[in-house]
């Protein structure tokens, strides 16, 4: 058993129009052993509804970060969306729908996570994407739990092999769209080990790596942040 590590699931997709399911999802997340989650919400969600959703999870003792998933087939559209939403959301994930958009997303420093649709046959995490990747590769394990079959398993195994070859960090997420698709950290680590990650990398993929993403994004959104490596310090002290 793994203990004394704070686990994060950066990809939980609640049904925003079904308030009754929020409570159940929050309870299941807490029971699973996660202390912090990334909730994927639609970009146009009203702030009052988002606050209600956040409060529901916080009542169960879970810290919430808001995430958006972008999916574009054209480079310009993706860049436009990144410009628009980077400052609004805590986490930005990109669902790669074709090779060109995957390359753009992987290279762009505003993208935190890239992931691939396990059902899409024409696009996968290959060497050319891994070679330029600044983003982390996200494995949504619900695809395996929803319909475990050898094609999805081998696809994930290949992704892990390529990521390890190019030293791309792998983040493990549930990608759960329903409460019953959530899995415990132990189960997710076990699946990752089967996919070819070693135990420590799997644990890091649920704890240290997502935590570092959130830390840097919170810092990036603070008012003293100028750019990478540059912060306002003297002015901030004077204001205080």
């Amino acid at each position, binding site marked *: *058993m793994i203990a004394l590590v704070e686990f994060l699931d950066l990809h939980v997709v609640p049904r925003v129009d079904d308030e009754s399911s929020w409570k159940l999802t929050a309870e*299941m997340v807490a*029971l*699973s052993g996660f202390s912090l989650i990334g909730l994927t919400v639609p970009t146009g969600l009203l702030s009052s509804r988002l606050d209600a959703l956040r409060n529901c999870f916080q009542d169960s003792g879970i810290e919430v970060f808001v995430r958006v998933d972008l999916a574009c087939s054209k480079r310009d559209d993706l860049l436009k969306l990144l410009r628009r939403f980077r400052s609004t959301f805590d986490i930005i994930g990109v669902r790669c729908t074709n090779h060109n958009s995957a390359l753009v997303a992987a290279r762009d420093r505003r993208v935190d996570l890239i992931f691939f649709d396990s059902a899409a046959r024409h696009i996968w995490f290959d060497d050319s994407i891994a070679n330029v990747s600044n983003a982390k590769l996200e494995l949504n*394990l619900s695809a*395996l*739990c*929803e319909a*475990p079959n050898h094609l999805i398993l081998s696809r994930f195994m290949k992704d892990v092999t390529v990521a390890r070859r190019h030293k791309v960090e792998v983040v493990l997420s549930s990608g759960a769209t*329903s*409460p*019953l*698709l*959530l*899995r*415990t950290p*132990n*189960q*997710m*680590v*076990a*699946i990752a*080990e*089967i996919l070819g990650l070693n135990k420590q990398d799997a644990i890091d993929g649920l704890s240290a790596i997502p935590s570092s993403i959130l830390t840097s994004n919170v810092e990036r959104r603070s008012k003293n942040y100028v750019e990478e490596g540059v912060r306002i310090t003297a002015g901030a002290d004077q204001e205080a």
Partner: protein
Amino acid sequence: MSRRYVQIKICSHVTVTEEQVTQALTGSIVRTFGEVGLSRIAPKLIHFDSRNSTAVLAFAKDHAVEMQAALAFIRQMGESEVLMMPLKTSGTIKGLSSS
């Protein structure tokens, strides 16, 4: 063969039976690891509490990873959706009851 024990919570909208749990577990292991994997993991349902929807399973100590993964891959029992959530793992049954 050295054994370990895992206590699981069965989350479902309907009540599940002992047979369904055994079938789902065996099916998941065979689908993922094959018959050889099943014989190596050697899972056994030790205790089942339908009222609290909990169960205790025994398995071969060296195959904890496969066991956890097989539990994670269980999505359905009969027609209903389920989640098999491991709560605690121990080397003894007594160890599961102590907090």
